[in-house]
């Protein structure tokens, strides 16, 4: 019964606002309910993160009672060998798989772009598979593959798995740029005496560079965020940050995770702010020009 009362206290105003936000934008009640609704979603989004950040500075172990300010958990985090090792593993795996899949994916996209229509469609649909498929199935299926061809679980299997789910994202962010590209430039380069390979590197690749960069960044984030596929393909020895957090939640929670979350949140926030400032700046520049 009390559950229902609590639910009503939270859910009813949100539901009312949810209907009112679609009202006539000139009316005051629409404006107010829109603000209320956004604030409610905003609180829902940031409440857990805010609590994590606040309690990362807590003196005690509790995540419910404030016992005084300290940097204790940050110190313990940096002293924790397991976590630090998993951070390094994550960085190694993310960067190596992102770099390999970007280089490999760039050439693959150029090749796919110039394929005939039917094989092109087939290969693009195959490329979509890991994006559409559930992570757990990708993980399980790669495990079966490794079992059959005899790749032992470890760094190699983990990086191969990451490459295989990163490549589709790289290819899908480069393909639209290839479509927008002016193909005459490539032919002009050939007319002016360039070799095809040279023309490709000096003419085609610069034109699709934005796609390559965003493909790389996407691969990097996908790889860092992955948990399920890594769980199946990493084996017992290698552990990424996601796997480490998962095993921490099973072993029992220490506020070190809070400190870790705070640091990751700040990194994500800084990166996104920089990326978006840069983006709006280039947008303004293009508008001026």
């Amino acid at each position, binding site marked *: 019964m009390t559950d229902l009362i609590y639910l009503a206290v939270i859910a009813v105003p949100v539901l009312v606002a949810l209907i009112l936000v679609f009202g006539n934008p000139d009316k005051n009640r629409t404006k107010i309910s829109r603000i209320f609704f956004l604030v409610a979603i905003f609180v829902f989004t940031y409440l857990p993160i805010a609590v994590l950040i606040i309690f990362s500075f807590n003196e005690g172990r509790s995540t419910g009672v404030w016992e005084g300010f300290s940097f204790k958990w940050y110190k313990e985090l940096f002293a924790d060998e397991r976590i630090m090792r998993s951070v390094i593993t994550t960085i190694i795996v993310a960067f190596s798989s992102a770099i390999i899949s970007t280089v490999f994916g760039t050439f693959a996209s150029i090749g796919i772009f110039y394929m005939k229509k039917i094989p092109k469609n087939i290969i693009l649909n195959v490329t979509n598979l890991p994006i559409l498929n559930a992570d757990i199935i990708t993980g399980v299926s790669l*495990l*079966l593959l490794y079992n059959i061809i005899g790749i032992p679980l470890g760094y190699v299997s983990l990086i191969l798995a990451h490459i295989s789910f990163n490549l589709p994202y790289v290819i899908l962010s480069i393909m639209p740029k290839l479509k927008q590209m002016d193909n005459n430039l490539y032919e002009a380069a050939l007319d002016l005496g360039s070799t095809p390979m040279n023309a490709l590197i000096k003419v085609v690749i610069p034109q699709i560079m934005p796609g390559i960069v965003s493909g790389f960044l996407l691969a990097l984030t996908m790889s860092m965020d992955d*948990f399920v596929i890594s769980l199946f393909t990493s084996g017992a020895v290698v552990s990424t940050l996601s796997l480490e957090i998962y095993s921490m939640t099973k072993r029992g929670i220490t506020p070190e995770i809070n400190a870790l979350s705070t640091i990751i949140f700040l990194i994500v926030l800084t990166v996104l702010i920089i990326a978006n400032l840069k983006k709006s700046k280039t947008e303004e520049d293009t508008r001026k020009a």
Partner: protein
Amino acid sequence: MSRLPKLRFKRSVFAYPYVVFAIVFLVAPLLLVVFYSLTREIDNYSIYLDHENTPEAIIGNLDFIGYEEDPTLSETGTYYYDGETLSVVNYRKSNAEVYKIYFGDGKVTFIEEYFGGELFDDTLDDVKFLNRLTGFYFTFDNFERFFSNPDSMKVFLRSIYIAFVSTVICLLLGFPTAYVLSKMKERWRNFLSVMFLLPMWMNFLLRTYAWRTLIEKTGIINTILESVGLPAQSLMYTQGAVILVMVYDFLPFMIMPIYNTLIKLDRSVLEASHDLGANHYQTLFTVVLPLSLPGVASGITMTFVPSITAFAISKIMGGTQSVTIGEEIERVFNNDMWFGSAMSVIIMVLMLVSMFFLSGKDKDGDNIGGGMI
């Protein structure tokens, strides 16, 4: 007309290495899952004796991979069974599994036994080696076992239910959020959309864990409730907790595609609708809503598909009453790849069906990566 210089190679050759890679790493694994789901390993299998498979050759093979005859086990000796004379020899390797070998009339039967019901890692490879030669048969057993077992059916239906409820809640919260954001002034909406989508870029296990600290027995919500004199609630380890966190984790994936389609809506279409006499609600229901459907469809795909198999969330937040199919696959797969593969195939079919209804709505793939980088 000037002739173009002849190309010395086709540019499509660049794709060939990728084609090979895609066949090995994208297509073959899925075919393997299907293959495993339709087969079972033979635990007890017979090899008919002939001039190649003599008892000596078979024992020699076992010797070769490290098995030794173990006369200390009581069953070693000669037995009579069904009028046949069988001699039984136990072979074992370093305290791990035992092969009982029955030599009968022209036939040798292997029976694997495990101590403690567990395979040890170092012997696993040898067993695979033996089994890979002759040790599987085609069957629908895995699927039958799944559909005839009320427990696994319950888990399956529960996962669909949890995924469905969280997708509906995500849609109910996500569509208005995207709509309100898209109606804001450009400066504000650029900033706010980044703020709303930011958690998407944080590790999702950390986001899941964050809720745990909030709703735990000793968490902050209960601390606040108790300090104002209200009874503490036990919110953890329930289906509600799993759904709550699924909504939290997947909401950005619903907001983002809908927001992207809404801001791309052609303003002149809306103006035309007003000019032709439609009021605000008529425009909303007959113009905005239908035009936003591609975004809604990809939002639903991006929430429903991961939430059906998400197992970390139910494992961290849920209890025994909220075990999902993803959790079940992970648990089963370590012991029984064949059954686990069958479950994966069932999930794949389910997703193909749901995608069939939602596909073709979002062709350009604009929404991958949130269009944020």
